[in-house]
């Protein structure tokens, strides 16, 4: 099936997608994944062979709309239970690494500053 694939996805694109998905992949992984994903994309591109312009999409097997429940109080997890699995907690809260940089806003540091 790889014969059908004209090289749909490049190594650079895979690196970009990995950054978007918050995966600090290694160079060796990029080499491996780029080739494998190219083969997979060549195969899944077959969905394009089906003439389906007038066909409605299905996102879900069971047709369901707006499933509501009554707005009533019910038991929930305690604060202690919620924090029990946290990598770090302090004063009844999740303790997280710093979320702000000194420099540019988060968006740009994500696309440029992240280790590949």
């Amino acid at each position, binding site marked *: 099936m790889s014969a059908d694939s004209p090289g749909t996805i490049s190594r650079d694109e895979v690196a970009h997608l990995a950054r978007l998905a918050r995966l600090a992949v290694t160079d060796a992984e990029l080499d491996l994944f780029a080739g494998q994903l190219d083969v997979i994309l060549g195969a899944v591109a077959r969905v394009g062979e089906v003439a389906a312009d007038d066909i409605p*999409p299905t996102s879900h097997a069971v047709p369901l709309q707006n499933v509501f429940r009554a707005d009533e109080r019910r038991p929930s997890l305690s604060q202690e239970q919620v924090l029990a699995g946290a990598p770090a907690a302090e004063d009844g809260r999740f303790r997280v690494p710093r979320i702000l940089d000194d420099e540019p806003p988060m968006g740009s540091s994500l696309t440029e500053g992240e280790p590949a």
Partner: protein
Amino acid sequence: MTEELTRLSAAALAAKVHSREVSAVEVARAHLDRIAAVDGAVHAFLHVGADSALAAAGRVDAALAAGEAPASPLAGVPLALKDVFTTADMPTTCGSRILEGWRPPYDATVTARLRAAGVPILGKTNMDEFAMGSSTEHSAYGPTRNPWDTGRIPGGSGGGSAASLAAFEAPLAIGTDTGGSIRQPAAMTGTVGVKPTYGGVSRYGLVACASSLDQAGPCARTVLDAALLHTVIAGYDPLDSTSIDAPVPDVVAAVREGASGDLAGVRVGVVSELGGEGYQPGVERAYRAAVQRLEKLGAEVVEVSCPHFQYGLAAYYLILPSEVSSNLARFDAMRYGLRVDPGGASAEEVMALTREAGFGPEVKRRIILGTYALSSGYYDAYYGQAQKVRTLIARDFAAAFAQADVLVSPTAPTTAFPLGDKLDDPLAMYLNDLATIPTNLAGVAAMSVPCGLAEEDGLPVGLQVMAPALGEAAMYRVGAAYEAARDADDRDDARAPLIQRVPNLEVHA
């Protein structure tokens, strides 16, 4: 005596426990001993919960001693639970490093229903990481081995659950099926596996792979045992908004009807597109023989065509990774699970380093693929088009079910392959699910029943029986009828029942 107990069906064990011929504690102990003896060779379990299983069994015995009726037809029969369901008293890892040692703060609905039914949980079974895989080799904790040949895969992602049955470590197990993860391992191990109608069993506390496809279901060594377990776990759950609010089909009655061996008036549709090229000759032969057997039981066999099934694999490997890329964003190193913190790094960096260290290669591939398929510019051509193909596959099913009560096919194109065979070729691995994927896309029900051993390698083959949404009764009836006929043929030919022909495993005292 304890060795004998592990060879019995769940129904037979329940009868012995409820009549107080043996205690539930003895039954649990026999299976825990068996796990201790053979799991080194099989590695079906990631965690064994001996204390909680024995305590649960003790409660069943105490209730029976006090004259109470059994909490369910399976009270006192122990079970192996796939490690993708949350359990408050045992770790839940989903076969991933990112959840190593995680103790959930709550029970899944399936877990809670098992407990309420008096079913002791022996432990948590191995699986491909977050249920992504067809061989259980993508577990971060090492592969499970097939009891029929420990050099081969047990199928996946629920290889641990299926192998625990074939190794007689448990009489019952629970799996989840997103594209075949209950049925394909059942086929590989000579056991029974059922994917109920989407929405038939609650997903609350089932760690999500692809939410629109995931479905929990029963695994067992007989069709009756699967039906009994189905009845325990199925049914409406307000905690799952996709749960179907309708009565559970009476699958136990359907099995009893089927076991009488008469399929007169039942129309069985042979799906033209599932079989032939790409299917191992021994699989094909066992499957054709099974179809003939159904005909001999009185079923009317008709050929049906589902022309869009050939696009099922492609649609699935766009829809599933898209949902995965979204669902697995929750593993962010902040609230639970692994955190890799080199010190002084930002939250974004910690997140990326943690996910890099915590996820295995197959999970990463699918997250990247899904991120691609959902990107602007590609969305219409990939994800959008895949959703349209999904509609066409559902229409193929609707047309086929107008001609037949159930559909049949081989469950998987091959028998169990050697460990390592397809690990470097993801696409070859994906092809395992060719015949099982369409039912997930359409949300209908399906099961795999063992239909003999392939001539060329002596390994089990699975017959897949598919039914319309909430049409489980017809499927169980046909499965049970076939199973009874198969066992009768084995008796006539002086062969042991299929599952009892698993070679003896090396036992460690």
